[in-house]
């Protein structure tokens, strides 16, 4: 029931408000989307063309933005002079690994947390969720010390484990809400028919499979976009895309073209994935506070 269905009267004020609303949204969209346009277009510009700006105050001169001959050289240098192929693989392995681990163990835990009651369950649940909400830097201080003593710093397994610190609690929290919506009666009916507990669990899997798949994607998204863990725990052997992009900023020579190209390479796959799981995206980003 959308509140927009409410009748409204046409008054000067309401007309002014609706014009204001349209203008506001138009401005907001420009402000939101312009950085993407700049990033995308600049990644195809030669160095000098990217730096071209009109004279201050010359608003009509803004067309110089589109005055360039497109080049792919920034994308090719990413893969020839820098080894972005390796970094993409690192990002994929680290993000994918932690996502799969988190969702497999997370769904088992979420399922049982959803089905059983015991003393201290609330406290356990709070501990799980506070792990997810803890500041990354604060978590990293002891984790770095521990990983260093285990020789996990600078390795992909170390990074996978580090990402699991926020992905596993996230998976448990989201999937518990998810399993809560699957009626226990379905499993009960199966068990009355003689199914074992595990067979009953298996019988509801087709119902939850799309959601579980979406949460794998969400976990990949969070891990892929991480910078702090990758910069410290992954430093050296397990460089991921955001860290590699950041390293293109050198004190003497900031390779803006390559940075924009690397930005596109890092962002585009996540946008596509985001569109694929659009239905679950809002729930995932708001920790389940909003379901579309």
């Amino acid at each position, binding site marked *: *029931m*959308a*509140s*927009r269905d*409410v009748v*409204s009267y046409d008054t000067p*004020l309401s007309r002014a408000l*609706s014009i204001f609303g349209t203008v506001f*949204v138009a401005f*907001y969209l420009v402000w*939101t989307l312009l950085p993407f346009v*700049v*990033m995308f277009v*600049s990644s195809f510009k030669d160095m000098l063309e990217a730096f*071209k*700006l*009109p004279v201050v*105050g010359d608003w009509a001169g803004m067309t110089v933005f589109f005055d360039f001959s497109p080049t792919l050289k920034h994308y090719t240098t990413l893969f020839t002079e820098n080894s972005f192929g390796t970094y993409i693989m690192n990002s994929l392995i680290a993000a994918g690994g932690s996502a799969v681990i988190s969702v497999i*163990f*997370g769904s*088992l835990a979420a*399922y*049982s947390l959803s089905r059983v009651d*015991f003393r201290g369950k609330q406290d356990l649940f*709070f*501990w799980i969720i*506070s792990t997810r909400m*803890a*500041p990354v830097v*604060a*978590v990293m*201080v*002891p*984790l*770095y*010390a521990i990983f260093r003593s285990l020789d996990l710093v600078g390795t992909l397994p170390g990074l996978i484990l580090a990402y699991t610190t926020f992905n596993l609690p996230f998976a*448990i929290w989201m999937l518990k809400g998810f399993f809560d919506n699957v009626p226990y009666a379905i499993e009960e009916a199966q*068990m009355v028919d*003689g199914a*074992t507990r595990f067979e009953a669990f298996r019988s509801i899997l087709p119902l939850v499979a799309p959601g579980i798949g979406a949460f794998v994607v969400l976990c990949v998204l969070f891990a*892929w*976009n*991480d*910078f*702090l863990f990758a910069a410290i725990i992954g430093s050296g052997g397990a460089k991921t895309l*955001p*860290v590699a*992009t*950041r390293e293109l*900023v050198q004190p003497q020579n900031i390779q803006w073209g390559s940075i924009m190209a690397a*930005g596109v390479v*890092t962002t585009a796959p*996540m*946008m596509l994935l*985001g569109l694929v799981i659009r239905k679950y995206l809002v729930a995932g*980003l*708001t*920790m389940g*506070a*909003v379901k579309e």
Partner: protein
Amino acid sequence: MTDVSSLSGTSREVASKLFRARAHSVEVEARPRAEITHKPRKFNPPMPKHYYYYLMAPAIAILAFISLYPFFWLIIMSLQDVDIGGGEWIGLKNYTKLFTDARFIDGWILLAQYSVMCLGLQVGLGVTLAVVVNSSKYEKYLVTALLMPMMMAPAVAGLLWLFLYNGTFGWYHWVLQSAGILDSASILASADTAMYAIVLVDVWQWTPLITIIALAGLKRVPRDQLEANMVDGASPLRNFFAIILPNLYPVLLIAVLLRFMDNFRFIDSILVLTGGGPGSATKILPVYLFEVAFKFFKLGRGAAIALTLLIVTILLGKLLVRVFEKPQGGKG
């Protein structure tokens, strides 16, 4: 069953269709029941709880290793003078030193300023946006467009804005300069304006989160209240402040708490944009902690700072979970 719309034509045809439909349903009922393939046990005991504990155990074990164990390490480390080499017990010295550490205290103040500015702008813009989007025909497309910044890695967003803010070739710098807001110095270069720069990036990336949460809240504003108010002759503005906004408070509280904790959690874009500078104008506490722990590798001191940060987060988290669990708290 037969589709009603297909029941047309002469009465004879209808009758024959109905008959076939009936025959069909009889056939369904006559179908043999699904066979039970597994051997029924003699009795089906109520599910023992330990079964669930086995399912939970792996996740709990992993979490214990990567969160509980490090937490105790953190406490132990905070009582030591840990450097690259090893530790040495110094008792509570790390904590007592914090009280005289001006940058630690400034870090908290800056964190509070940063959060208040971010949240103020985000809630103001986000709610306005939600109200407008909610009454738009293109709601679905608008929301998709709004979701885009949140898909971008915060570090990449930081780099992108570093480009846009650049004093010689940044487009946003040019716009601000042309509009007469800035002189030729970059917004990032001055200690007075750098804070606004990082706030704007956070606003750019995360205002849409407030918008989608507020949008969900708007869908639940009781329609009868709105209509009653309209019939009483209230203006749209009055409607907004008297009915819509009070109905939004619970969801907005969730949104604000989520964003507030994220301001503690993510410093990626700040590290990329300013690294805490110029001077220490944007050195909010997590950035300061990052510097102490991972630039100077004073892990013991870092641990003490981290613990204070954790305690505040845990308190906020307690509040958030309580809000979440309230029935009107936005769980739909």
